[in-house]
């Protein structure tokens, strides 16, 4: 697996012609192997931006380039060979096993008639199951797993795609603290370029190399967490009073939030 450079230029999107613009011109450049956190309040355009990155929405303006290849100048399949996504969609229970779900990741690499794939496919699926410690669960039905296990299955499925860019939509949602930490640890350890939306600003600050702060569909900051997630920027974006405090025992910054004293 090699990491890709992600270049986003002048990207904007609205549902239909003349509709409300949900994402205003956004540009950033993410170096290969870096972890980008997309943060912002509900409705800030996080999901919209992610959907543009994994080629679900077609941009109204601008381009998304993975290693200098515009994802809309190549086929959906060619993009799927470079970009994988872990979304919040929960598969309905159609009796697929964990192993079968993970091997779905090989779909964009298969040619022609839907076979079970070659030896290489089996090796990749095997490695992905192993990496997420899912080997013992390979024959279980997805419906019988816990939330944390399902999340790991979906990550393993994305890794089986052998992507260079991995996109995650709120990967820590609905997970308990231990599973949150495990997922974040995994994200840090992957030799891929990663874009993830995160609700928790302190988690984002801890795990991300860069963050993109969105508000009302507009980017209001891109860069290292320490500079972007300033008290004023966060207070403004989330309409709260944010304070950066120092946790003494671990000596790291920690944001705390308070409702505005004089709410507008």
């Amino acid at each position, binding site marked *: 697996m090699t990491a890709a450079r992600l270049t986003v230029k002048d990207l904007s999107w609205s549902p239909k012609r003349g509709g409300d613009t949900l994402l205003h011109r956004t540009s950033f450049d993410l170096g290969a192997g870096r972890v980008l956190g997309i943060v912002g309040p509900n409705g800030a355009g996080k999901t919209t931006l992610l959907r543009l990155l994994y080629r679900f929405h077609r941009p109204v303006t601008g381009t998304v380039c993975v290693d200098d290849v515009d994802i809309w100048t190549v086929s959906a399949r060619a993009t799927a060979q470079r970009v994988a996504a872990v979304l919040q*969609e929960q598969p309905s229970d159609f009796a697929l096993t964990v192993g079968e779900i993970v091997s779905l990741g090989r779909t964009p690499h298969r040619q022609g008639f839907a076979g079970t794939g070659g030896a290489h496919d089996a090796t990749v699926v095997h490695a992905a199951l192993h990496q997420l410690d899912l080997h013992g669960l390979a024959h279980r039905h997805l419906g019988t797993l816990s939330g944390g296990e399902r999340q790991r299955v979906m990550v393993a499925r994305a890794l089986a795609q052998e992507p260079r860019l991995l996109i995650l939509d709120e990967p820590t949602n609905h997970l308990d603290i231990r599973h949150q930490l495990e997922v974040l640890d995994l994200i840090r350890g992957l030799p891929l370029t990663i874009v993830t939306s995160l609700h928790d600003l302190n988690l984002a600050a801890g795990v991300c190399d860069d963050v993109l702060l969105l508000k009302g569909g507009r980017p209001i900051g891109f860069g290292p967490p320490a500079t972007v997630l300033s008290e004023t920027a966060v207070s403004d974006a989330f309409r709260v009073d944010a304070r950066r405090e120092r946790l003494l025992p671990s000596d790291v910054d920690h944001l705390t939030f308070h409702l505005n004293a004089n709410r507008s």
Partner: protein
Amino acid sequence: MNDTAAHPSQTKRARATVALALFGLAALAVSVSFAISVGAVQVPLSTVWSVLLNKVSPGLIEQSWSQGREAIVWEIRFPRALLAMMVGAGLAMVGASLQAVTRNPLADPHLLGISSGGAFGAILALLHTGLFLGLLTVPFLAFLGALGATAIVLVVSRFAEATSADRLVLAGVAVSFIIMSGANVLIFLGDPRATHTVVFWMLGGLGLAQWSQLIYPLAILLVCGVWLVSRASALNAMTVGDETASTLGIPVARFRLTVFVIGAMITGVMVAFSGIIGFVGLMVPHVVRMFVGGDYLRVLPGSALVGAIFLLWADIAARTVMAPEDIPIGIVTGLVGGVFFIWLLGRKRAT
């Protein structure tokens, strides 16, 4: 579990699949034999096989049966059994595919109104337009009707924002009612002498099976069936979710539409030859998943096999419960399918 554990269990799984397939094919052969043997005139199984073998290679077995028996086996019951198998296999595969692309365990060509559309088209051809395309008129208009009904259901479900499983089925049932009332108007306006046949046909029946016409359902079933199986991994991906499927490189909207058109094609042609036979598409894939799991590479062939067997036995039941009268087979599948539907609703609540 260690690294090497996956391989023995995979071969075990493959072996189990082969064993199930052989068992299924054997069950199919037995079912066909019974379907030909049973009826107003009982034909011994040995005669059934002798006649069939003699047709395949003439003179293989010395003829010890009457011409009448031979005609019953070859001209009446064998084509009927073949039609039953094709209709069962086709409807079951349509149901399985629709369940994947709508991510809806309740999807079924009958419940989604596609069968009603097919019936509307077929009635139009039988009572009103005349056979302007010869023998192809009825299947062709049935296909157009099924396609039209599909389009209406899709528009209604978008309009009513029927994204959940239950609401999509409700949209389908509503459209089905509207189309059936349209079909009934066509019957009402039609030639009274012809309506009796049409009404009987609408309730579902395989009695019209003839050698000369079996080629149409066979061709559609083969072409569409192979296409669906070739898209098994895309169907698997669709069960996970639209956006995930799209990140796997599947053109989701176009693929779903294609599956709906293929489904309308199979359903329309089957309805044209057998009337409305409901619930096969709903029931069979669920039963198959219990045996072979959820991978569509196994679900689709399994559904075809089990659908064929199920419809053979439904037809046997339809011919024997009130012998010597045939009751419409739709009554049998409706009864079994309705009970199954209730069971499915109960099971969904339990999980």
